[in-house]
């Protein structure tokens, strides 16, 4: 009875109210006759712009369900900064979270506003998304896209502390201070491990691996990656000049970095430097126990290629001797690059490991003069030559024969010798014109700016070159920017007519407007407007328009057997010349920078090893 009295009082008309629903439109829609498009942010199926996609595989890495696999696409062009692969998505696994879209380094991945995909065949649930999506239709409405809020990459680089331009021009002190631990770990956390940089690096350094070591704060492991590379794979990717390259490498890797597509590339070079600067000494961490081999290899020239070859050969157990004409080992690293970019200590750190491996370096011994190549051939089982580009080129315009018109390389050598107390003070002009738009010209200009500042308190250096803009100039943009900050003035787009000489003193340079540097076939063929002139005052002119090799140490009969192309030696992929026992590398084979030299050293070492092993049999 109680229960009944608690029953609700219901409106008398309540049942009638129900009738109103008869006349209402149904809430359902008639699928498939009515098509409903999903909302603007809907995470439907994937579309991938194949032209934008670089195959970095970051989508596959973030995928929480392991639904994305990178599959090789054979006929995609093999270009730097890309991998010939594209993501393939398994909709049996996909959770439609769109993390792949949010982390995509190029923004090529997006999702559509489609709801439905039906098929009785399980094979229809795996596909490689293209611009046309899973159903192959043009102009599919796009749903979820990445925006600033959903961004999963960190696009901004951790800033590097540097001395200000006005401060750094006062001395030759290294002005890039290097990352602190926190900064390095932070910067390392930006890497997505796509290894596109590894492909790009001439030496194929294991960049993602050592960056990950930094991120894990395991610098010993990082140093192993730097100096030993892939230990189980012939040490590929090792670089004995990590301290040098951590400072002055041309960092092609950073140009290829996938983060660079939408943001600032990971500071690979500086991360490398962070490792070497923050380990006590290599010898404590790195040890080699090579099996001694009863063979000797001679190396001519102690530049990057020569010493790298020595390093790799020594790790294989060969007895290596290096012959260097100048008083200190290092070649361009010692005598070319100014110390504000590469201090001697960094170079010494690298070279000391090579010496610790038992490599003998004979300095002040010029092959061709003090000892003949033929003699080396007799005393050693193989010879590797890496003598570099030591001769300067001249514009040969009237007046260049004057004693105050000098070549860049000897001047840089003189400056470095002077700074380390090993030579007289070079002539410091009150006003200088540098002809040339490459990094060597920048080195001369910035070194001289420092000397002028130290000597006279003011900077008066002008750089002129044929290239008409900073972008066209072969020098690194940061060199130009930093030079400007240090007071160097730039006059791009001018070609020299003559050196103005009055009373046997250099007064300046007469220049004419350069209209075009390269012709339609992209060959060096400058065109000038002879009427448009510019006069730059100077009491010294430095020519830095390129260098050339000096093959005078090669005996004629050897020279005859060798093959040259455009002044460079032709070798096979193992840097073996047409003379079996003679290997070559560095600028005289490839150029143009240190890391290419290191790569030459690596491949030559493998080639020499191969040659000597086979010879034995």
């Amino acid at each position: 009875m109680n229960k009944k009295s608690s029953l609700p009082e219901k409106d008398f008309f309540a049942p009638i109210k129900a009738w109103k629903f008869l006349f209402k439109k149904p809430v359902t829609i008639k699928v498939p006759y009515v098509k409903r498009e999903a909302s603007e942010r809907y995470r439907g199926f994937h579309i991938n712009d194949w032209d934008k996609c670089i195959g970095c595989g970051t989508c596959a890495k973030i995928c929480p369900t392991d639904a994305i696999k990178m599959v090789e696409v054979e006929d995609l062009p093999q270009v730097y900064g890309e991998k010939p692969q594209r993501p393939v998505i398994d909709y049996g696994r996909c959770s439609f979270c769109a993390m792949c879209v949010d982390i995509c380094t190029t923004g090529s991945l997006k999702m559509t506003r489609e709801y439905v995909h039906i098929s009785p065949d399980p094979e229809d649930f795996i596909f490689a998304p293209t611009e046309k999506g899973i159903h192959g239709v043009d102009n599919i409405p796009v749903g979820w896209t990445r925006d600033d809020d959903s961004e999963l990459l960190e696009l901004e680089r951790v800033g590097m502390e540097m001395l200000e331009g006005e401060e750094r021009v006062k001395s030759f002190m290294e002005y890039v201070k290097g990352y602190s631990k926190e900064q390095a770990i932070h910067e390392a956390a930006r890497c997505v491990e796509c290894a596109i940089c590894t492909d790009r690096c001439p030496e194929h350094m294991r960049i993602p691996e050592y960056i990950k070591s930094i991120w894990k704060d395991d610098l010993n492991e990082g140093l192993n990656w730097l100096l030993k590379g892939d230990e189980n794979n012939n040490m590929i990717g090792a670089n004995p000049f990590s301290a040098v390259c951590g400072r002055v490498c041309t960092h092609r890797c950073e140009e290829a970095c996938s983060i660079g597509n939408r943001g600032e590339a990971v500071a690979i070079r500086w991360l490398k430097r962070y490792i070497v600067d923050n380990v006590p000494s290599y010898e404590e961490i790195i040890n080699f126990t090579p099996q001694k081999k009863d063979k000797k290899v001679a190396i001519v020239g102690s530049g990057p290629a020569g010493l790298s070859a020595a390093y790799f050969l020594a790790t294989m157990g060969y007895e290596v001797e290096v012959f260097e004409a100048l008083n200190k080992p290092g070649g361009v690293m010692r005598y070319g690059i100014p110390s504000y970019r590469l201090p001697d200590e960094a170079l010494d750190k690298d070279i000391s490991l090579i010496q610790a491996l038992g490599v003998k370096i004979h300095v002040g011994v010029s092959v061709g003069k003090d000892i003949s190549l033929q003699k080396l051939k007799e005393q050693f089982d193989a010879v590797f030559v890496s003598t570099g580009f030591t001769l300067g080129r001249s514009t040969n315009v009237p007046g260049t024969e004057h004693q105050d018109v000098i070549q860049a390389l000897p001047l840089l050598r003189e400056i470095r010798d002077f700074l380390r107390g090993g030579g007289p003070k070079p002539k410091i002009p009150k006003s200088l014109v540098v002809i040339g738009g490459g990094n060597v010209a920048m080195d001369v200009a910035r070194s001289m700016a420092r000397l002028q500042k130290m000597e006279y308190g003011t900077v008066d250096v002008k750089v002129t070159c044929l290239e008409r803009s900073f972008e066209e100039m072969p020098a690194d943009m940061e060199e130009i920017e930093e030079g400007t900050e240090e007071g160097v003035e730039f006059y791009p787009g001018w070609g020299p007519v003559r050196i103005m000489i009055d009373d046997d003193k250099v007064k300046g340079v007469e220049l004419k407007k350069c209209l075009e540097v390269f012709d339609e076939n992209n060959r060096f063929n400058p065109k000038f407007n002879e009427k448009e002139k510019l006069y730059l005052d100077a009491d010294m002119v430095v020519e830095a328009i390129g260098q050339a090799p000096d093959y005078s140490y090669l005996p004629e009969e050897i020279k005859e057997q060798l093959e040259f192309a455009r002044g460079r030696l032709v070798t096979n992929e193992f840097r073996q010349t047409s003379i079996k026992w003679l290997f070559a590398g560095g600028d005289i084979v490839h150029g143009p920078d240190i890391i290419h030299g290191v790569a030459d050293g690596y491949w030559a070492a493998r080639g020499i090893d191969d040659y000597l092993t086979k010879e034995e049999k």
Partner: protein
Amino acid sequence: MMSSMSEIVKNLKTLVKKLEIVEIDEREVKIEIPCEKTLNVLSFLKGNGYSHLSILTAVDWIEENKFEIVYVLFSWENGGKFVVSTKIDRKKAKFVSVMHLWPIARFYERELHEFFGIQFEGNDDMRPLFLENWDSLPPLRKDFDPLEYSKEKFPDREYIKDVIYEAKVIRGDLNG
């Protein structure tokens, strides 16, 4: 820490000498205690308003060779939470039951036995709860590898279609 909670912590310090206190936020405090004091501390907290057992769980600290047993106690009066934790030997994974304090602990303990292999004295119901015919390590132990396990147990499915060819046809690079 709320004043009412610091009051309790002060009292607890007289009860247990070796007491580690981690203040997680204003209303959440973790107290780490030696295992023999666990029942004392739990009943003290239960008697002082922290009567709701939010969760009873364990953490496998394999490198330390310990299991950490965690009780989260919540007070409906002031919203404070005490995370009571104690560590036991991983090799002799045995602990006391708290089912006389909280009936639901019987099931939490059963779960911990199933997933970590921890025995609870005083709880005689240690039958498996979630898993059927389980034949490997207790799965929430850190040394259990689920990927290996499923590779062993379940077949993989391979797709046979040439997806790249299909994509090229869709793109119009190739004629299908």
